[in-house]
């Protein structure tokens, strides 16, 4: 197990954003974290990435406790945040170089990995443009390429397709599945757009800060008596937690 979350609870004042959330991600698998707006997905990501600490519970990434050994855990993560996190004054290549350096990559390794990541996402010809001049979809690709440049073992994606048009979303989804399957990288993909994650190996449904269902897409369809994952998702959100 590469990611284990046990009994995670986070309060904002009187509001309980996460309530005893537990989930697991297996090596090489794509796990979808489905939740409506306000379900607690982003809060969970903030805790998973060590930005903030939980009020209770435990996060273990490759056996490293996020509370006590965050650096060891972070070194093996690739992260795409919901809110774009590019330096718009830097070019795509400079953004990737910055991230590679931040992760301690040597110059030679950085050059090879950045070239490969730019090529994989079809960004080579736009690498020297300031990111400010790139479209929203291309910027997202740059963020994805950046997250993969350090060869992470687990990719955390927080609504990576938000704000993208249908074509860009489709391309991004295809690129993520292709890149991570090729490299054997595990993915935890938070979204409310069911069509993005229909090929996921496992699905965790979060509603009102609680995990209301988890399993394979087939098992969710069976347990909810639904024909599609979208119907199952809506049904699970209707049920009181």
């Amino acid at each position, binding site marked *: 197990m590469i990611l284990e979350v046990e009994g995670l609870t986070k309060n904002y004042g009187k509001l309980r954003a996460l309530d005893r959330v537990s989930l697991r991600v297996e090596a090489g698998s794509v796990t979808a974290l489905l939740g409506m707006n306000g379900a607690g997905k982003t*809060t969970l990501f903030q805790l998973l990435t060590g930005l*903030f*600490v939980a009020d209770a519970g435990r996060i273990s990434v490759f056996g490293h406790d996020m509370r006590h050994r965050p650096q060891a855990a972070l070194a093996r993560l690739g992260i795409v945040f919901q809110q774009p*996190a590019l330096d718009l*004054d830097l070019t795509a290549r*400079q953004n990737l170089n910055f991230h590679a350096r*931040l992760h*301690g990559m040597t110059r030679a390794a950085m050059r090879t990995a950045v070239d490969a990541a730019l090529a994989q996402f079809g960004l080579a010809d736009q690498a020297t443009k300031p990111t400010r001049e790139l479209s929203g979809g291309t910027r997202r690709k740059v963020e994805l390429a950046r997250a993969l440049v350090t060869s992470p073992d687990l990719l955390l994606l927080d609504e990576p397709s938000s704000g993208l048009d249908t074509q860009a979303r489709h391309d991004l989804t295809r690129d993520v599945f292709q890149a991570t399957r090729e490299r054997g990288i595990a993915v935890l993909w938070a979204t409310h757009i069911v069509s993005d994650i229909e090929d996921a190996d496992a699905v965790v449904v979060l509603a009102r800060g609680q995990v209301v269902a988890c399993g394979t897409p087939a098992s969710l369809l069976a347990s909810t008596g639904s024909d599609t994952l979208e119907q199952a998702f809506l049904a699970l959100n209707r049920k009181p937690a």
Partner: protein
Amino acid sequence: MRWLRALEAVVLREAIRFLRQTSRLASAVVRPALWLLVFGAGFSNVLGISITPPYQTYVTYDVYMVPGLVGMVLLFQGMQSSLALVFDREAGFLRLLLTAPVPRWFILFAKLLAGTILGVLQAYAFFVVAWLAGVDYPLFGLLTVLPAIVMGGFALASIGLLLTVHVRRMENFAGTMNFVIFPAFFLSTALYPAWKIAESGALWMVWAVRLNPFSAIVEFIRFALYGIFAVPEALVTVGVGLLAFLFAARGYDPQKGVLGRRGRDEG
């Protein structure tokens, strides 16, 4: 090795951004130059400074002003670099920095170091402008003043960093900068020595000037420019810098600091 590369990443980014922001580059030199040329010229005959350490003779007002204006360069750079951090937070880029696999305090230290290096370069650019404007200062002082500029720049950047823990929005931070920069600058020895103020009878102001850490930084620079290491001022500068940095690092610590406890839209 990872730490060094992370340091390189942060410093390089700051340098690239600084060079691209031409208006910031220009204002870094033009602002103190205007003070020197306009204010200095206007008051040079009124405010000559009689023999007082570190000066061994009567000096004109523009000579007195130079260390204070170097302090101003560092003060603005410190606040600008903190403003950039607040901007990074609003733009979401700070998350990337804070999820780097190195301790947060080190990332903050790297930011401070980058800001300090930029401050030092701007300070020396101003020394050149002052020299071109005919201000007389010892050339060997350009060497002896370096530690004071580095420590002063670090201290002021640390204070700015501490502000970013508590003031988290761009619009609030811009306003707060005015409440820091102007009192710090005007209630200091940057423009007039404390004894001149005492002579005017404004005793409350004398105390404010003496207790202002920016005065210590300016005096540290002033004495260092004449080859004198002012120990008390150096201790205050380093002490204030370290304290501000420690409190800021604690503020950003997700386990202990206010940002970690607040969560939600922070980071």
